[in-house]
Structures are given as structure tokens and as C-alpha cells.
């Protein structure tokens, strides 16, 4: 192509490009306002310790819903059984882990008290995992969830170390960090997270902290609330009612 030809085609190309661009703009403008507005929501979860019966259905539902590997040690949410013995020593076991070494069995007469603690990502308002991620692959959404972009994560595992709650793991298939998303894909459609949906005793309460009508706000009003490791100033958004002082 010589210079003259090139300039000629440029004369045609530029206006044509402009027309296409304006058409595209118009087509874009016709799209309806998205029904879901992140800025109108701010999510959290409430957990009533006394209601949890350790059935582990939340864990199973979570694994199915989110393609979490079935093998033990990969969890987005898990349930811990705390047994406080009469000598005040504490035994913590993850419910449903049958494999591995013989688990310590506490004799009935040695038990002072025992209870279950469901755990998951706390979707902290001041999340250490987001702070340390070298490539911005994990971030806080406007509506209060901490998410991971698996197409961006380089699998350095720094966030896994930085999380004080052990809520993250390296997904063996994607080789990227994985964790609870509050079932974000469900929540934006107005559905409940899978673990909340299946809980038979309603020990888990999901809700919007920006809505006065939300069950979570009611939960916070009616209960004495505690969060895990408040001294680390991570500002968790998973709130526990009836949490024992021994729980970390």
C-alpha cells in the first residue's frame, strides 16, 4: 500500500469508526439498569453457637455449591467441636475429619462443657489478606465481601499465611487461593448462601447490615455479640452469639 492509498482509506475509516462507536454507545445505553446495586448492601453473617448441632450439612452444602475438593483439609467453611475438660484443658476437633491419626476421644465423665463452632472467612472490614496480596487478586467488594480472582492470583500463598483465621487454602486444581465468598453468586441474585440455606437449626443467619429489616440486624439487636480475635483489629463481619472465651 502506498502513502496515497493509505491516506485515502484513512479518510473512509475514521468516519466509519465514529459511526460504529456511536451506534455501540446507543446500544449500550439501552441496557436496563442492573437490578442489583452493590452500594445498597453490606453483608455479614451471624452464628448462634447454642443452635449448632454439628451436623456438618453446611460444610457439605458448601463443598457442593462451590466446587470445594471433597478431600478433608480443603474447606471454605468448617465446624469445630470444642471440648473443655474438667481439668480446663481444651480439645478442638474439626467435625467430619475421620481419616488421619486416631482422634482424641474425651471420656464423658471428663467433659466440663462442649459445643460446636462453625467457622468461615470473616469477610473482615480490615482484611490482612487483601493488604498483603502482591497483585491485587483479592479485594473487598462494596457490599462487604472479600473475594479472590482466580484468573489473577499467582498462587504465592501469602494471603493464606496472613489470614488469622485459617480461612484460606490453595485450591489443588486451580492452584490459586480459595475461600468463602458468602456465596456471592447466589447473594447478588437475592438467594442465601448455601450453608445458611441448609442449616436445619438456623444457627447461621445471613443478612444485610444496611437494611433495618434484615435478620442479621435483628440478630445483632437480640444477642450479645462477639467476633474472633478482635485484638488483631481485622474487624470481622461474622458475628457470634454465645461464643465461649476458649474459642480462638
Amino acid at each position, binding site marked *: 500500500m502506498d502513502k496515497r492509498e493509505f491516506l485515502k482509506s484513512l479518510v473512509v475509516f475514521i468516519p466509519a469508526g465514529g459511526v460504529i462507536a456511536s451506534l455501540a454507545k446507543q446500544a449500550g445505553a439501552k441496557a436496563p439498569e442492573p437490578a442489583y446495586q452493590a452500594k445498597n448492601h453490606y453483608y455479614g453473617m451471624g452464628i448462634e453457637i447454642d443452635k449448632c448441632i454439628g451436623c456438618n450439612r453446611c460444610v457439605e452444602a458448601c463443598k457442593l455449591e462451590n466446587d470445594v475438593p471433597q478431600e478433608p483439609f480443603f474447606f471454605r467453611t468448617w465446624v*469445630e467441636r470444642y471440648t473443655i475438660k474438667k481439668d480446663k484443658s*481444651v480439645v*478442638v476437633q474439626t467435625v467430619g475429619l475421620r481419616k488421619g491419626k486416631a482422634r482424641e476421644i474425651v471420656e464423658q465423665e471428663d467433659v466440663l462443657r462442649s459445643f460446636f463452632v462453625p467457622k468461615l472467612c470473616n469477610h473482615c472490614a480490615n482484611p*490482612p489478606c*487483601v*493488604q*498483603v*496480596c*502482591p*497483585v*491485587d487478586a483479592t479485594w473487598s467488594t462494596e457490599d462487604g465481601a472479600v473475594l479472590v480472582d482466580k484468573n*489473577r*492470583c*499467582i*498462587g*504465592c*500463598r*501469602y494471603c493464606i*499465611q*496472613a*489470614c*488469622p*483465621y*485459617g480461612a484460606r487454602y*490453595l485450591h489443588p486444581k*486451580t*492452584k*490459586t487461593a480459595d475461600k468463602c465468598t458468602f456465596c456471592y453468586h447466589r447473594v447478588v441474585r437475592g438467594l442465601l448462601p448455601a450453608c445458611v440455606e441448609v442449616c436445619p437449626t438456623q444457627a447461621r443467619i445471613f443478612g444485610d447490615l444496611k437494611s433495618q429489616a434484615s435478620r442479621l440486624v435483628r440478630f445483632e439487636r437480640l444477642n450479645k455479640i462477639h467476633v474472633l480475635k478482635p485484638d*488483631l483489629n481485622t474487624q470481622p463481619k461474622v458475628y457470634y452469639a454465645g461464643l465461649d472465651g476458649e*474459642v*480462638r
Partner: protein
Amino acid sequence: MVYPYLTGLVAGAFILASLVKVFNVEEVRPTYRLSLLTALAFLLIAPLPLQLHLGHPLRSYEIFLTPNPTSAMAMFGFVYLWYLMGVLVLELWFEYRRDLIVWSREERFPMSLVHRALSLFSTDTSDAAVAFDRKAIQVITVIGIPSAFLLHGYVGFIFGSVKANPWWGSVLMPIVFLMSAIVSGIALVMFLYMVLTPLRGEPIDMRCLDKLASYLFYAVIVDFSLEALDFIHRLYQSEESIHILGTLIASKLFMSLLVIQIFLGMLLPVGIMIAVRLFSVTAELRKLFYFTAIILIQLGIFATRWNVVIGGQLFSKSFRGLTTYKMEVVGIEGLITALVLLALPFGVLLVLLKVFPPWRRAAA
């Protein structure tokens, strides 16, 4: 785990090299070029274990392209690059420039071209140019010392800033890392000097060796004091985590921390060096003692890194129990890979020694 060990050696070796240029410690001049080359060899290999650890090694360049400014790890990429390109390579170039030009004129084909290319085809060997080289080295070293401190201090910060982990989260961490880096770097250069010099059939300069040993001795003392301070501080504060950390030290880390790191890697070599100072020993015996001490120290620093990195992952985040670490033998993060990674810098160093022979000074 191999990574902090390697960068530690880099920073230590460089700081040793700086002693010659900035503080004019004439005694250690024979090791100046060797230290720089050692630092470069180890620095080039250091990112490799990190790369292998990534789930997606091919995305690692994202750390430089789209870094997260609040991430200590992302910013470290730039510290590393700065140190490699802005300090080490530059200093080496100025140090060797004149020699490279002179060598390339004397040599035959492949090496003459290599040396000419490495001198970036500069040809000026006038006194003014050499004087400028010297001046440049002076400036780079002055900037280089804080950079070397930053390099390994920052590695310490990456661990020390993790508040989720009580074994890591400590303000002393960067300084402890730095001091142990200096210890391991001096010990490494001493080792290389003691091995390479006899191999070339030349006598070991005892003035140089004694000076190195005395620096090593003080560095070990400072390092030991800092680690002791950290330990005592934790014990005295006796926070919640003390129970799990106590169990950790008494069980899983007993061998690597108490026996290897503290006893074999610190107390014993310090004892040896005190003995050498107290009793006037013959040069031959001194060499033997020094050699034993530096091997022990190297072992000790390796154990230090092990205890920090592996130790920090041996207890659950709820502080309620210990986990296990099973070392693989084969596999990308197994024992064999680790040994290869530890041996690789020596291979690189061998090449560097061939290309930049530190003992060959071009005639004026």
C-alpha cells in the same frame, strides 16, 4: 525456605565487600571481588525457589506490572530489582571495566569477545576514566549498604509483619534477619576464600582471615543477642501464644532450634572463636578452627531459616495444636529440588569466576 537463606547470603556478602570500599578495611581486600561475585551468584538464583513455589509461576511478572502498593511482597520485587540492577551489577561493572578492556585486548577469540561485550564495548582506560570508575564504586557502595540492609531487612519484614502468626510477628524480625544475613554472608565468603585459594596453589592471607573471623565473631554475638532478646521478650511478656510456641520449641523444633541453631550453630562456634583468641594458636590450627566454625555457623543459619519458615507453619491458627510438615523427596518443592537450588549458586559462581577472575588484575 531456601529463599531467605540465599538472599541472606547475598546481603551478607555484599556488606562484607562494602567494608573494603567504604571503611577502607585493607585486610579484607583479597575477598572484595569474591564477595561481590558471590553476592551476584546467589542473588541470581534466589528468586528461583520463590518462582517454583508459586501456583502460577507464569503470572509472576504481574508483581511488577500490577503491584499492590500495600503489599510488602509486591514492593519487595522492586527492592530486589533495585539491588540487583542499581547496585550489584553496576558496582561489578565499574570494578571490572578496565580489567575487561585490557583482558579483551590480550585474549583470543571467544573470551575476547565475551569480555569486550561485558565491558559494554567501552575502550577508555585512561587515568581519568579509571578515576571515575573508582569514584562511581565509592558512591554505589555508599548507596549499596543501606540497599543491602533493605534487601534482607525487608525479607524479615515480610515475615515480621504477619500479625496472624505469633512466631513471625515481631518488630525485631527485620533486624534479626539482617544480622543473621551478615553472619552467613561473612561465613560463606570465608569458606569460599579458604577453599578457592589453596586450590589455586596460593597461600591464604592470614591477616585477611583473622580480620574476617573477628567480624564474624562480633556479628554472631550481635545476632545471638538479638535472638536472645526476642526470646526473652516473648517469654517475659508471656502472651497467649506462649503455650503453643513453648510446645513447638519443646517438640517439633527441639532438634533444629535448640540443638542445631543455638548449640551447634552459635554457642559452639563462638566458643571456638573465643578459644582461638584466648590461646595463641598456630596459623594452621587457626585455619582448621575457623573452618570448623564457619561450617557450623552456616548450618546454624540454615536451621534459623528453617525454624522461622517451617516453624511458623507448624501450629494451627487457633493456637490449639501442632500440624506436621512432611518433606517430599522428589517433586517441585521436595528435598532434591532444594538441594539443587542450594548448589546452583555455586555453579553460577564457578562461571562468574571464569569470566571475572577476581584474582587476575590486569597490568597497568
